[in-house]
C-alpha cells in the first residue's frame, strides 16, 4: 500500500465500460429477485391476510430465513445450482426480499379500515372488485415501503456473491483486495451505493405516481 494513492482516477476513466457492465450485471442479480418476490408476495399476502392462522407460522419461518447469513446460504446451494451461477445468488436474494415484502403486504392489506371495507360491500362490490379497487390500492404505499427496504438490501447483499464467483460489482472488492489496489474497491462501494440510491429514488417516484395520497404521511 505504500505510495499507492487512495484513488487512481485514470484507472476509473480507463475502465468505464467495464464498470458499467459490472453495474448492469449487479442490477440484474440484485433486482430481478426483488421483482420475483413482489410477484410472489401479493398472492401470498392475500392468502395470509385472510387466514391469520396460516400467516403466523409463515411469518416465523421468514423471520428465520431473513436471519440466515447470505454467504452461508450461497454455499449450501452450490451443489444444486452450481458455483458462480446466477441462480445460486438469486434464489437466496429472492427469499430475503420475500421475507421483507410478505409482512408489509399483509400489513397493507389489513390497513383498510373495516368501515371502508363494509362501505364497499354495502355499495355492492364483490370480493374481486373490492380487492382490485379498494384493498390493493390501499396496500400500495406499504408495498413500496417494503420494496425500498428489500431493493436496497438486495443491492448491497448481491456483492457478497462475488465470494462464490458471481457478485456483479462485488468482484471489484475481490480484485482490489487481491492486488492491494484500493481504487476498484472505492469505485465498487460508490457504484453500489449509487445503484441503491437510484433504485430508491425510482421507488419514491413510483409512490408519487401510484399513490399520491400517501406522500408525506407514509415514510
Amino acid at each position, binding site marked *: *500500500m505504500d505510495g499507492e494513492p487512495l484513488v487512481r482516477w485514470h484507472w476509473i476513466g480507463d475502465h468505464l465500460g467495464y464498470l458499467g457492465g459490472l453495474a448492469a450485471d449487479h442490477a440484474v442479480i440484485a433486482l430481478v429477485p426483488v421483482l420475483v418476490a413482489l410477484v410472489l408476495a401479493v398472492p401470498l399476502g392475500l392468502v395470509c391476510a385472510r387466514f391469520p392462522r396460516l400467516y403466523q407460522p409463515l411469518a416465523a419461518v421468514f*423471520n*428465520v430465513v431473513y*436471519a*440466515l*447469513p*447470505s*454467504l*452461508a*446460504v450461497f*454455499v*449450501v446451494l*452450490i*451443489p*444444486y445450482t452450481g458455483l458462480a451461477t446466477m441462480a445460486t445468488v438469486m434464489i437466496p436474494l429472492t427469499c430475503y426480499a420475500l421475507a421483507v415484502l410478505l409482512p408489509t403486504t399483509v400489513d397493507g392489506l*389489513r390497513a383498510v*379500515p*373495516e*368501515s371502508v371495507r*363494509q362501505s364497499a360491500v354495502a355499495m355492492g362490490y364483490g370480493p374481486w372488485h373490492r380487492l382490485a379497487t379498494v384493498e390493493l390500492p390501499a396496500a400500495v404505499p406499504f408495498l413500496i415501503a417494503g420494496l425500498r*427496504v428489500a431493493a*436496497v*438490501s438486495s*443491492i*448491497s447483499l448481491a*456483492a*457478497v456473491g*462475488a*465470494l*462464490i464467483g458471481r*457478485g456483479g*460489482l*462485488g468482484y*471489484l*472488492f*475481490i480484485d*482490489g*483486495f487481491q492486488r*492491494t489496489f*484500493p481504487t476498484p*474497491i*472505492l469505485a*465498487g*462501494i460508490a457504484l*453500489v*451505493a449509487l445503484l*441503491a*440510491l437510484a433504485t*430508491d429514488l425510482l421507488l419514491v417516484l413510483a409512490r408519487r405516481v401510484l399513490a399520491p395520497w400517501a406522500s408525506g404521511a407514509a*415514510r
Partner: protein
Amino acid sequence: MNWLGWISDFLSDPAHRSGPDSIANRVLEHLVFAGEALLLAAVLAVPLGLLIGYTGRGVVLVTALTGVARALPTLGLVTLAVLLAGVGDAAVLLPLVALAAPPLLVASAEGIRGTDPDVRDAARGIGLTHRQTLFTVCLPIALPTLLAGLRTAAVQVIATATVAAYAGLGGLGRYVVDGLATRNFPTTVGGALLVVLLAVATQLLFALLIRYASPPGTRARRTHPMDKESI
C-alpha cells in the same frame, strides 16, 4: 450431494477437533468478535438514540443515516479497511460497528418516541425529572423495541463476520472462505451450516429475551388494531 458424508468429514477432521482451527475455537472467535462489535456499536448508538427519541430532535438525521448505511456493501468496507489499516482485528471491527450501529440507533430512538405521550406527561406530572422519566418510565416501555434492534444488529454482525474472513478474520467464516479457496467442500458446507445454526440460535435467544423484557403493563394492552375499527 452427500450431505451426511460432508458433515461427517467436516466433524471428523482432526484439525477441527482441537487446536486453532477447531470448531470450538472458531465458534468462540466468532462470538467474541461479534460481541465486541455489538458492544462498541451499542455504546456509541444507544445513548444517542435515547436522546434523539426523547427530545424528538435529529430524527431526519437518523432516517438519512440508516438509509445510507443500508446501501453500503460490507464486503467492500471490510476489504477497504484491511487494505488501508493492515490485517488485524481492529480494521475489520470498524465496518462491523458501522453495520451494527444504525439499527441500534433507530431502535432506541423509535422505542422512546413510541411511548405514549400521556404516560410521559403523567410521569412529569407526578414530579419526575426528565432524566427519571427517560430512564424509569420510557426506557422500560422501549426495551422490547430496543432488544429487537439489538437482535437485528446481532444477526447482521454474525452474518457479516463470516464475510470478513475473506479479509483475514478468524471465526467460522474461515471454514467457508478457506474451503472455497481449496475446493474443500465438506469444510465450506460445515462452516456454512455452523453459521446458520449460530444465527438461528441468536434469533431464538433474542425472541426469548424480548418476551421476558416486555413490562407486564404493556403486554396486556396489545390488542389487534382491527378490533377498534369494527362496527
